[in-house]
């Protein structure tokens, strides 16, 4: 996703001189399509994310559209207060690009996992929060949001090849994309974990369980109307996110159910404990935290059984 994103950004920058790219010393072999074409609009800010966000705020106030780039946790959590007091309170078009949500940095270990970024960004009013499911949707989301007047947070995955079947790269801010329709339960996924959710939906179908699968790539503004519609139709919905279960899509779906008085039971599939110092591949971590396709299938079946009792 990140390679596609940067290539698309460079194409946009060709036409729009306001676009700048700042990195916290990350993106080697990824950012060159931009940095080599626009050396005057590219700054390696060094390993100093607070200053990067502060400088980006100053640039945006003067009319630029600065994209700041780092790994999810360093882009979102380290300079969080600078994001709040800067682009959010001033409503300026700073773009915060975090790479590698969830467990994508696998063996790099817990310091590099991104498990709370969507939650901390979503609670702030006035910032668009975008988490594409694949590289096609990453491109579409950038094209749809790069010139919004307020700030945007992007959580990008590292995979550049896989696509979520049926999604076709569709993106619309404030909307959910329904890519499979069923009758037994709803599955609502955010970000690149949608691959596991799609795979689980296929396996469930093979076993005679029919599910609706929605991909939510924009948590803020929240796709409230779409979620109300989906959650009204089912007694059970699984939310799926490579994120702590608090703050992300599971919380959002629960808020919608509560505020609209719906009778859908929400089962939040996500991370419930700290990684406890354990590193391991993304595949391993998804399995450990119940986010692998197989684990999602098991959860769906056992939860369907429990509500039918």
């Amino acid at each position, binding site marked *: 996703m990140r390679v596609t994103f940067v290539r698309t950004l460079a194409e946009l920058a060709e036409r729009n001189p306001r676009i700048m790219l700042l990195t916290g010393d990350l993106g080697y072999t990824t950012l060159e399509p931009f940095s080599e074409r626009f050396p005057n*609009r590219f700054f390696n800010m060094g390993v100093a994310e607070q200053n990067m966000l502060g*400088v980006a705020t100053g640039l945006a106030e003067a009319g630029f559209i600065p994209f700041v780039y780092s790994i999810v946790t360093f882009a979102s959590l380290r300079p969080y207060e600078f994001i709040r007091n800067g682009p959010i309170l001033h409503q300026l078009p700073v773009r915060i690009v975090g790479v590698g949500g969830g467990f994508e940095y696998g063996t790099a270990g817990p310091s590099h996992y991104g498990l709370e970024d969507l939650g901390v960004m979503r609670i702030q009013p006035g910032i668009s929060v975008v988490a594409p499911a694949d590289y096609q949707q990453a491109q579409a989301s950038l094209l749809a949001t790069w010139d919004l007047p307020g700030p945007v947070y992007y959580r990008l995955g590292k995979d550049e090849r896989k696509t979520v079947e049926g999604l076709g790269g569709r993106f619309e801010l404030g909307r959910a994309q329904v890519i499979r329709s069923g009758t037994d339960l709803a599955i609502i996924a955010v970000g690149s974990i949608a691959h596991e959710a799609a795979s689980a939906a296929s396996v469930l179908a093979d076993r005679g369980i029919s599910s609706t699968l929605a991909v939510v790539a924009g948590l803020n503004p929240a796709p409230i109307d779409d979620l109300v519609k989906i959650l009204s139709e089912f007694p059970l919905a699984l939310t799926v996110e490579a994120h702590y279960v608090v703050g992300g899509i599971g919380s959002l779906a629960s808020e919608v159910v509560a505020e609209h008085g719906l009778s859908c039971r929400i089962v939040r599939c996500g991370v419930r404990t700290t990684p406890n110092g354990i590193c391991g591949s993304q595949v391993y971590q998804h399995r450990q935290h119940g986010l692998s396709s197989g684990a999602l299938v098991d959860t769906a079946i056992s939860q369907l059984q429990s509500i039918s009792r």
Partner: protein
Amino acid sequence: MRDLSGETLAEKYGLSYQIRRIILEQSKRANVGHIGSNLSIADIIAAMYENVLRIRSPDDPERDRFILSKGHAALALYAALFLKGFLTEELLNTFCEDGSVLGVHPDHALNGVDFSTGSLGHGLALGAGAALAARLRRSSRRFFVLVSDAECNEGSLWETVMFAAHHYLSNLIAIVDLNGQQAFGYTKEVLNLSPMAERWRAFGWDVQEVDGHDVEELTRTISGFDTTQGAPHVLIASTVFGKGVSFMQSQIKWHYWPMSDEEYRQALIEIEEMS
């Protein structure tokens, strides 16, 4: 108030006195503190708004920018904006009222304030970004950022100090209000910042040390800065916390304390006598 010659006190004593008077009046009316921090920068603000800043109107995009990174002294800034005609008396008199945009810390919702500040260690980065933008746009506007000495406790400030020096942001001028005090004690006891000038110099800034209560010296020093090329500039401005009011000077409690009626009367007399 007019004396026998018909001159107002404002005309007689200049901007520093008027800023101090507004600081006392409004702090008393709103019954809030941060008086010592405000008095500490009254002369720096006077130099800025009387002599240094090139501002034809607060809407002119080519105007110099002033960022009060030590946002807790916003009242001194409001006073200057009022005295320069950028802020009405009616609005000034809403300071700290319910529903006012004039809080203890400044907000960009107020015309004349470009950036909201109050979280220490933020303002210099904002100024650096704005200064970089001006360079990219080939604008000659300058960016002044007033930081407190205790604000130099913040690691984020030094991130920006490195960045600005690396990119030779000569259009960025930091002013350190070196009053030696912070909320809970003296800086040398809380987290020693000395030698302040050598620290900035070691990071590659052009450093000048001045008396932060000498408007003429402040003005003269800044006018000597080359803001078209070379290193960013920092004025290390030695100041006295609570300057002008004897019972506040260098006293920790006046970081937060509001004034009693008697203290207010005494303070007004003293600032007039010093002017």
